[in-house]
């Protein structure tokens, strides 16, 4: 999307849900919102990584037009509506669809309590999945000694792809196929994670918002009550997220 040039030195403002929000040249609506500590729900966006506009949870009304906040440039005088019943209803439906498209078994998932998809469900007041379960048959890849790839939980956010390509400089992951056939693949001849050069302290091994990419056998090290979303809402943690210098889990 083309970005309108705005002079960095000029104070620019837009409004989000009626609140005046300053922004700098080159910032997106999401950037401006986060800088002003306004939460716009999102799963595939992570400050420090190039935005991709995949999950569509951050869709807002900007001057009456539906746009993804993470990839839409902020504009002077822009009127943005985000926290509306209509948009939150759409976000709830998207989150429900993400749940039913995969196999998200929260009760036994070791990411439970640290999972951003689960936290999003709580944030949006999701009480049930609403849609019929797809129950897809997906392959688990346990071939790597320290990193596990469990495709059952993948929501195709693309964060691992961007982290591995742009930060780790290893290009371990890719999204293959389109639409409902899209799937996370490993860029090795065998397609196995064990044949890749991913390491446990790579950003790509730690940035997964769900439990699709995990460090093996850490299991349930974090006791209940001490997990991230036992104490905080996803709207809180989003304010402090940023890619670290060396890939460690953001949390």
């Amino acid at each position, binding site marked *: 999307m083309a970005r309108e040039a705005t002079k960095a030195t000029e104070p620019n403002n837009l409004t989000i849900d009626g609140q005046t929000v300053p922004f700098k040249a080159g910032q997106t609506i999401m950037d401006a919102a986060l800088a002003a500590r306004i939460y716009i729900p999102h799963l595939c966006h992570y400050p420090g990584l190039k935005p991709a506009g995949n999950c569509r949870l951050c869709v807002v009304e900007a001057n009456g037009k539906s746009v993804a906040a993470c990839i839409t440039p902020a504009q002077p005088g822009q009127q943005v509506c985000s926290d509306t019943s209509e948009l939150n209803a759409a976000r709830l439906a998207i989150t429900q669809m993400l749940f039913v498209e995969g196999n998200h078994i929260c009760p036994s998932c070791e990411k439970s309590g640290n999972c951003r998809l689960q936290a999003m469900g709580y944030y949006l007041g999701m009480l049930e999945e609403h849609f019929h379960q797809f129950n897809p048959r997906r392959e*688990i890849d*346990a*071939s790597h000694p320290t990193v596990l790839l469990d495709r059952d939980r993948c929501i195709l956010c693309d964060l691992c792809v961007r982290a591995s390509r742009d930060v780790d400089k290893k290009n371990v992951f890719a999204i293959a196929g389109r639409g409902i056939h899209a799937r996370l693949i490993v860029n090795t001849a065998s397609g196995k994670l064990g044949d890749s050069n991913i390491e446990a302290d790579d950003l790509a091994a730690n940035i997964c918002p769900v439990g699709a990419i995990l460090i093996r056998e850490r299991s349930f*090290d*974090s006791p*209940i009550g001490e997990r991230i979303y036992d104490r905080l809402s996803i709207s809180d943690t989003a304010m402090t997220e940023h890619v670290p210098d060396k890939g460690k889990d953001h949390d």
Partner: protein
Amino acid sequence: MTDDQSSTNTATGTRRIAIDPVTRIEGHGKITLLLDNDNHIQEARLHIVEFRGFEKFIQGRPYWEVPFFVQRLCGICPVSHQLAAAKAVDQLAGIDQLTPTATKLRRLLHFGQILQSHALHFFHLSSPDFLFGFGSDPMRRNIVGVLEKHPDIAMQGIKLRKYGQQIIEAITGKRVHGTGTLPGGMNRPLSQTWRDALLADIEQILQWSENTLRLNEQIHTEHPEHADFATFRSNYLSLVDDAGALEFYHGGLRACDPGGAPIFDQQNYCDYRQLLREEVRAWSYMKFPYLQQLGNEQGWYRVGPLARVNNCDAITTPLAEAARKRFKAFGGEGPVHNTLAYHWARMIEVLHCAESIQCLLHDPEITGADLTVEKGDRRQQGIGVIEAPRGTLFHDYTVNDEGIITKANLIVSTTSNNQAMNESIRSVANQYLDGHEITEALLNHLEVAVRAYDPCLSCATHALGKMPLQVELIDAEGKLVHRLVKNSDGQYSKMDK
């Protein structure tokens, strides 16, 4: 007799009576009574109508996930499944010895689990039968009725259960389906705050446990008619410790015959497949385990409180040991075969749990911070066995080189009591069925017999007498002769054809 239900009804001239579902047990069950042409009970079948499939769908999952996956088998005894799986996972991670603190935390957790499960069963599910009588008004014969008529007893039961749940919460973070175990240890220490809070109530818990035990002793000593109710001789299986004492968490397998003589003793539970076999029958999703050396006809056995208290040579805590001696004196020579004595034995175990909890809470190591040990070389198979509230529980997992589960075998406690429950049903039905009409008394007494075992049929759901109960009398041609329905409001209605 064939295992095929329809051919049983027609080819052998038997009639079928079905009780569906059975109430105030953990899960949904259905009883079928097969009558011969002389209206004698030819066979009794407790059908398990749910299919769970855990053994199959944990295949393909990482081994370290298993304790938290399989604990979802049950909402009453998830800790038992978590601990049995955790012991198996320790082996898969190449670990044979935990730190003293981790071992004590797991034991404390297990005592809390047994305490709350036993309290739930007696007070919420079974006490109405004994306090009001087996044939009393079903509208009143439930925990609400106990609260109204015997509020002190009911509140003791509720608070006993609450205490056990608090122990579970202190260690796993939640009262139901928490976490806690890790390969080789535990994930957090017991805080001083929790330890002090639990200690503050333990004297009261001990007193209530003694009161409950005394009530159960009276129930049996003052009602000699209970001795013959659903009673039969059987083998017994349980864990015992190195000295032969009562043991819930870790020990050797001991099986005794109906006379109390050992069939085997101090057997390593990892060799359970050489000791036990499981028979599949077409009419039930629940298998029929038996002692291999005695065969399927003679080798079936009972597990649970009655088996444990019968099998052990002693109990390591003084009050429970004194209670065990009174129990043995009541039974005379050999094991106590009285099926309703399950309740008595259960309350002896409640007292043992309370005493053991007190002892562990005073142990300085219980609040230690040394919770895990280093993993060793991964192994291909892990077998964890514990004494769950309802009896010996087996978890057996095989993994591949990548740590993925390839095979699982679970023998849950209620499965081991499968044949015994059928025997109890047949015994009671022969006593209370006249062959012409299904009576409320028959329904009530059959349920009391099954309830003694505290069966957890689905390991997930339970009901407080609210489920409808239906009994049908069907003749040899499959024609409905008579039907009695207990509605969800507890009222009976008859429908004759």
